[in-house]
């Protein structure tokens, strides 16, 4: 097991560096550079101004030299400096990371629990009206574009009903402390986490339902029934446990996106996470920040894939890692 983990980690490092190099060239292939963007925003600039910026950002050096400098930094765990934001990239990312983790993790938990429960319920009542209802709802969630759902949620719950704040991480300037602050953040979390979770909730529901139905037709379930086990126990011990495998696979994939996967939600809801940071960095061609976010996201994806593989063992001990 340990040897397996070490080997996987070694491979992960190589993959990470390959991803970094690829990203580096992709980003630099996009038209415009951060100096031009900053000069553009300043509303006036002469050649000296732009040349100064390029020199300050190190953009006057050959591309390969820039790559070398960047990779050298990353190997020493230095993600570089954002001249745009006047902060080290690592600080920027780690300032923003908690907000993203809270948002995506909540969405993930909502999606996974509600999705699985709904899937189990639907499969237990297959063909009945409650199954149709749940399945239709799932289809609706699955098909609704995220930004539209987000805007409608804000319109209904924030503008018309005024129940929940429509954007932001907490009430700015309210200076809540302790539990009051937690409550405040939780309130702000409801709309973005729910809209972000809707799509995956639908996916989990459909997958759980299909998987449950499939497993329930297998021979060992028939055997269990023939032995006279109670339906509840068959559902829980025999069907559910086996039906969860594909769901775990998918959840592992989604978990990998926890870090970088909320660009749209964070932008619509003004959520100060790294999805938004990435989006803004892209528009501003803030190379170091973009590369930094990609790096952290890629690392997370690799990490979660590893965790998923290990989790398989616990869900189904027959599966061997290696």
């Amino acid at each position, binding site marked *: 097991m340990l040897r397996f983990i070490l080997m996987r980690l070694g491979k992960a490092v190589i993959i990470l560096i390959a991803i970094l190099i690829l990203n580096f060239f992709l980003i630099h292939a*996009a*038209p*415009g*550079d951060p100096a*031009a*963007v*900053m*000069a*553009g*925003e*300043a*509303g*006036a*600039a*002469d*050649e*000296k*101004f*732009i040349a100064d910026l390029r020199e*300050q950002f190190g953009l006057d050096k050959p591309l390969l030299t820039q790559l070398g400098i960047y990779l050298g930094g990353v190997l020493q765990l230095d993600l570089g400096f954002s001249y*745009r*934001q*006047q*902060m080290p990239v690592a600080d*920027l990312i780690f*300032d*923003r990371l908690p*907000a993203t983790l809270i948002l995506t993790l909540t969405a993930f938990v909502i999606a996974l629990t509600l999705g699985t429960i709904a899937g189990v319920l639907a499969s237990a009542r297959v063909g009945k009206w409650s199954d149709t209802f749940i399945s239709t709802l799932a289809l609706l969630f699955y098909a609704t574009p995220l930004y539209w759902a987000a*805007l409608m949620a*804000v*319109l209904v719950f*924030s*503008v018309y009903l*005024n129940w929940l*704040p*429509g*954007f*932001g*991480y907490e009430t*700015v*300037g309210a200076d809540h402390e302790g539990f009051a602050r937690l409550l405040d953040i939780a309130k702000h979390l409801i709309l973005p986490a729910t809209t972000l979770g809707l799509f995956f909730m639908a996916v989990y529901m459909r997958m759980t339902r299909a998987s449950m139905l499939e497993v329930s037709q297998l021979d060992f379930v028939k055997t269990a029934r023939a032995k006279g086990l109670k339906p509840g126990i068959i559902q829980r011990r025999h069907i559910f446990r086996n039906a969860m495998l594909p769901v775990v696979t998918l959840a592992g994939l989604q978990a990998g996106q926890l870090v970088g996967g909320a660009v749209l939600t964070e*932008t*619509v*809801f*003004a959520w*100060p*996470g790294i999805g*938004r*940071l990435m*989006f*803004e960095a892209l*528009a*501003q*061609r803030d190379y170091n920040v973009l590369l930094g976010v990609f790096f952290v996201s890629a690392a997370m994806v690799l990490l979660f894939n590893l965790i998923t593989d290990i989790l398989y063992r616990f869900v189904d001990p027959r599966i061997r890692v290696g």
Partner: protein
Amino acid sequence: MLKRLTTLAAALLVSTALHAEPVSGGRANVVIQPEPPSLMVGLVQNGPTQMVAGNIYEGLLRYDNDLNPMPQLAKEWEVSEDGLTYTFKLHENVKWHDGEPFTSADVVFSADQFLRETHARLRTSLEHVESITAPDDYTVVFKLKQPFGPFLGIFEVGTMPMIPKHIYEGTDYKTNEANNTPIGTGPFKFEEWVKGSHILLTKNEDYYEEGKPYLDEIYWHVIPDAASRAVAYETGVVDILPGGSIENFDVPRITEMDNTCVTDAGWEYFGPLSWMWLNNREGPTADKRFRQAVMYAMDREFAKSALWNDLGKVSTGPVSSSTRFYTDDVNTYEYNPDKAKELLEEMGYDGETVRLLPLPYGETWQRWAEAVKQNLGEVGINVEIVSTDVAGWNQKLAEWDYDMAFTYLYQYGDPALGVARTYISSNIAKGSQWNNVEGYENEKVDELFAKAAVAVTAEERQEIYTELQKILTDDVPVAWLLELGFPTIYRCNVKDLVTTAIGVNDGFKDAYIEK
């Protein structure tokens, strides 16, 4: 003989007395978008930076809505009769936010050292300055090489902010730690910046103007999505939407709300003028008749009413009507598709497709490009819209890779500051999107702009600029669209929010919230 220009201050005192008595206290919640890269306005001059930093930093002068100078850090000033010597007397009880006194040494440092190195726009203006000296702690003398008409117009906070000498002298300006905790002389102090969320400024208790500012604090909310910014106002999270905060089609809905006021004042100094760059070097746009045809073909009144809620004005030429030396005695281009067709026929336009770059600043500009495409299509011009993001747009313009491209530029109150740069041939250089991007070359125009900048009397300057406006509106180097009107939307109980020609950018020192 010296000429005094300080009567205006007295006039202002009278006019404020007519208002209700301002009250102290309260908080302003304002939208800021996009998040500024830095608040150090001496180093970074983009829009959001200027908007927040105008509360922290100050210039020597402010300008009223007719662009007349008013005192700020300079309480009075004198101009010698030959137009070469400008003497400023500073307020004597001004302190930096860290408690150090503000003196003439700071002015000399800011103008002569710091900003000459960092501020591209000011650097160009300062080329006319021979020396900047401080005969005593509270007097500063600018001596010019030759008269420079717009000189008194370069002292507002975005153009010449005062930078603390004791913090920056002898350091590497760009990497100075203090850039993250800006120290100015302004009515509000920097308190906190939670990136991605908000910027907090608090009242400067030691401000040198008695009783001001009135507000206790200002929260600038960073909200990246335009629809969310509208929601922020609707749900009461913010009370002030500076011009351009929300999409134009949301403006009517928001301004119809109770207790909501709107003004398009406060942009006179900038005079944002939109036009389409027309590539004068190659393709059909190199032909003057084609460019004139474009002017006739566009229904700019329609664009104004349908896309801009009737705010702003149809432009008559290169100079905005709020800018000094404007004249409307020029060739004007009414919407006239038939005339456009005639011109196109005369030049033998073969239907070659022209590429149009919209401005990637939101829906309005995208739709405007579509309207133009339709207008031009009606007279037989084939337009292909090429969409880009901001960085791509910058690059395409800077490298002249376009046929027609939307933009808008500021005028800074005087043709020598904000107009000449677009049309003089010495400003043709790849690499910047704010110079003569269209590649227009006209010796006569070069000569006249050079002459006008150093002419001593206003009459003389008016005469030259009138001639210039006539030549340019005949040549149509670019296709002028609208003098943009950006509405500032706010709750009506916020008073004296926009009091000068740079509007919200001038800081909230006069603003108060009526109880």
